Every structure is written in C-alpha cells, then in structure tokens.
C-alpha cells in the first residue's frame, strides 16, 4: 500500500490532434479528433502521452468530453464514483452512482466467475437486449474477472513481471481478505461494465502497448501458448468498447471500465471511433 497517493487535479487543456503539430506531453491534455482507428488512438496514448482522447464522431462525444474534463481536474473522483463520472459527468454524486448501478458483485475466488457471468446474462436478457450485445458484455466481464483473479495478485510490483499462473489450476482465492468487485451500470444510451481489484499492479503503459501491438501484429502472432493467460484479454476488452476508462492507483487499486452503446445495431456499434481515458500511470 506504500505507493498509494492522492492524484493531483489539473486544469484541462484541449489539443486538436488533426492539426498535426503536437505540444509536449502534458497529463492535463485532452486530445480531440475525428475518425481515428483503435491503433491510432493507442498510438497517441503510448507515444504522445495523452491520457484522454475523445473523438467528435465517437459515441456521445459531449458527455465523453465532460467526463474527461472532470477526470483531469479531479482524478480521485473516478475511483470513488466511476459510473457517475462516465454516465452522468454533470452530476457526480454518491446518490447518482448508486442509482446507476444495476449489478454489484464482490468476489474473492475464481469459482465465482461463472455465477457472475450468468447474472450479467440474465439481467441483460431481462432488458430485452440483443444476443450480440450480451455476448460482448459477457466477454469483457470474463476478461476483467480473469485479470483480477489470475494476474493482478501475482504481478511483481518492482519488476512488473507476471509469473503466468496456470489457468487450469484448481480454484484460485484472493488472499488476506481481499476482494475484487464487478460493477455494471447503464442509462438509456449506454452500458458500463467495470472491474476493480485491490492490487493496483497493472502497468498501464505496458497494457496499452500490448493492446496496440495486438492490433498491429494480429492476435495469433501475439498469443501466449505457454503457461498463464493467452494475452488476448486486453485486446478483447478494447475491441468491444466504444469508450475505455483505465485507472490505476499504484499498489492500491486497478479500475477498468468499458462502455458499450445500447439499442444500436452491432454493425454501427463496432464501427464507432473509440474514446480512451487513462487515469494515472
């Protein structure tokens, strides 16, 4: 827990990425663009240090921009009320957070994963949502939970090395009374699936670079056929979302959120330019 510290709030600055000339990397910058591919969004994050990238032709741009402004000026707030920050950035309160959450599961064992995924499926089916959407949300939740149980507790905080726990082992339990948390929230437009783990061991620079590499080289070329994870989970998550929020407080908490538009065809959904928000590195 020694690495945890209060995140510093800054005054947002807006940078038009289409102008071609980029200012020096600044954590207060919000990159604005149109029609960037997932690879390009990741390039601006990894190579140019942008923490917030909002696309004008992405889903619900105005709300994304407001959310980005909030998170630049008050990044702590993301960890306190993530759903309100994403879905109602003009009203970020505990009450609003609670009103948005439709599913909230704490977990400390790999054996709980299946039950949580079934709960997600049942809830979304009860709302009459399409099978393709339910499959996408379930796939993201699966990778989130898997990461929280099989990766987060075992990453060396000094070297960032992940020993690659065998997924075929018997039940894995989080030790020391720790628990992860799976959250789902939605309004009429958008759904957020999120997962929090109490380790804060994810290196976001490596994480983003890995996703970018998978886009560039293809999943088959980057897949791990040895022990541990397949190395595709982060790509599956990123691919499914119209907006991604990745937050880490070192050695304290990792909070990953993926938003998916509702009431929209799959074809429209997957072609939406993505937004990206990185809270602390």
């Amino acid at each position, binding site marked *: 827990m020694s690495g945890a510290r209060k995140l510093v709030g800054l005054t947002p600055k807006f940078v038009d990425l289409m102008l071609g000339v980029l200012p020096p990397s600044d954590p207060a910058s919000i990159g604005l663009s149109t029609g960037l591919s997932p690879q390009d969004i990741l390039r601006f994050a990894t190579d140019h240090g942008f923490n917030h990238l909002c696309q004008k032709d992405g889903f619900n741009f105005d709300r994304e921009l407001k959310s980005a402004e909030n998170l630049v000026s008050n990044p702590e707030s993301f960890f306190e009320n993530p759903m309100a920050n994403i879905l109602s950035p003009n009203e970020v309160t505990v009450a609003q957070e609670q009103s948005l959450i439709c599913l909230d599961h704490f977990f400390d064992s790999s054996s709980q994963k*299946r039950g949580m*995924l079934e709960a997600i499926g049942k809830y979304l089916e009860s709302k009459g949502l399409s099978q393709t959407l339910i499959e996408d949300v379930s796939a993201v939740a699966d990778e989130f939970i898997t990461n929280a149980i099989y990766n987060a507790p075992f990453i060396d905080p000094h070297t960032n090395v992940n020993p690659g726990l065998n997924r075929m082992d018997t039940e894995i339990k989080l030790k020391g009374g720790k628990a992860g948390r799976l959250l789902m929230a939605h309004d009429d437009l958008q759904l957020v699936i999120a997962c929090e783990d109490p380790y804060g061991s994810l290196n976001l620079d490596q994480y983003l670079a890995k996703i970018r590499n998978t886009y560039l080289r293809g*999943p*088959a070329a980057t*897949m791990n*056929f040895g022990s541990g994870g397949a190395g595709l989970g982060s790509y599956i998550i990123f691919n499914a979302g119209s907006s991604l929020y990745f937050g880490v407080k070192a050695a304290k908490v990792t909070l990953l959120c993926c938003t998916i538009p509702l009431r929209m065809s799959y074809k429209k959904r*997957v072609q939406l330019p993505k937004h990206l928000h990185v809270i602390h590195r």
Partner: protein
Amino acid sequence: MGFAIEKKPEGARMVLELKGNIDEDANFAPPDIAGAGVVVLDLEGVSAINSVGIREWIKWVKALPGSTQLSVRKCPKIIVDQINMVAGFLPANAKVESFYVPYYSDSSGSEKMILFENGKEFKEGEIHAPPDVKDDAGELMEMDVIEAKYFKFLKNG
C-alpha cells in the same frame, strides 16, 4: 454453463457436439475418434469463448490426427469472430458447413440469427443472402455484420 463434448456418429462421419463455455474450465481431452475419417464439430451449443479458451481450442484442434478431415457447422457468431480474428483458429484444410449471421431491426431493436449453409446461402466464397429477413412485426431486418470482415474467412478458405 459447463463445457461438454458429446460424440454422435452420423453415417461415416463422427460428429462432436460442443456445448457450453470454452474457457479455462473446459476439459479439452483428446477425443476418441479412432477410425473416423471425417470429423464434424457442431458448435451450435457453444455459448461463450474467452481468451484462454481460444488458445486451448487451437491446441486441441491442432492435436487432432493429421489424416482427419475436419468440418465445422452451425458456428455461432462468437466462433465466426474467432475464425476471422485469430489466424490458425481453424486448420487450413477445415471446411465450414454452416454458420450463423445476425440480423437486426432498427425499428424494433430485435435480432435474429440466420443459418447460412454451404451451397445455399454461400458457395465458393460468394454470399447469397436470403432476400427478406423479417422481425416478428413483419419489418425487414438488416444483416448486422460488416460483410468484408465477417465473411472474410470464406475468401480465405
């Protein structure tokens, strides 16, 4: 949903029906397919596949005897996505007999999965989609995939 593989001989072909989630809990033991020249994987019952499941699937398929002629049928969208996304998800000589294509109605928000079969809705890499797919209210539905991506595997086959 737990994972299971059920063997169902179908004439000279051995059909393996896969059901449930393909993930770290899936028991991908080598199937007893001795003597079967043609093995058909019926994937209609596959409800999910995660990143570890993709890897285990590839290992399992690669371990099938080299003399086996492999076919897959009734592939749900989650499997078609993997075939297109992950090179080597299916062996190069594997045949796709049929697969599902999602259709969506903008007016009702409803979705249907339509089975495309070789020789009917697709043939030699070309798509011959059914002319009219309608929702329960009789409204026309639109094919809900990016065709260049979703049918990519047919061009590669």
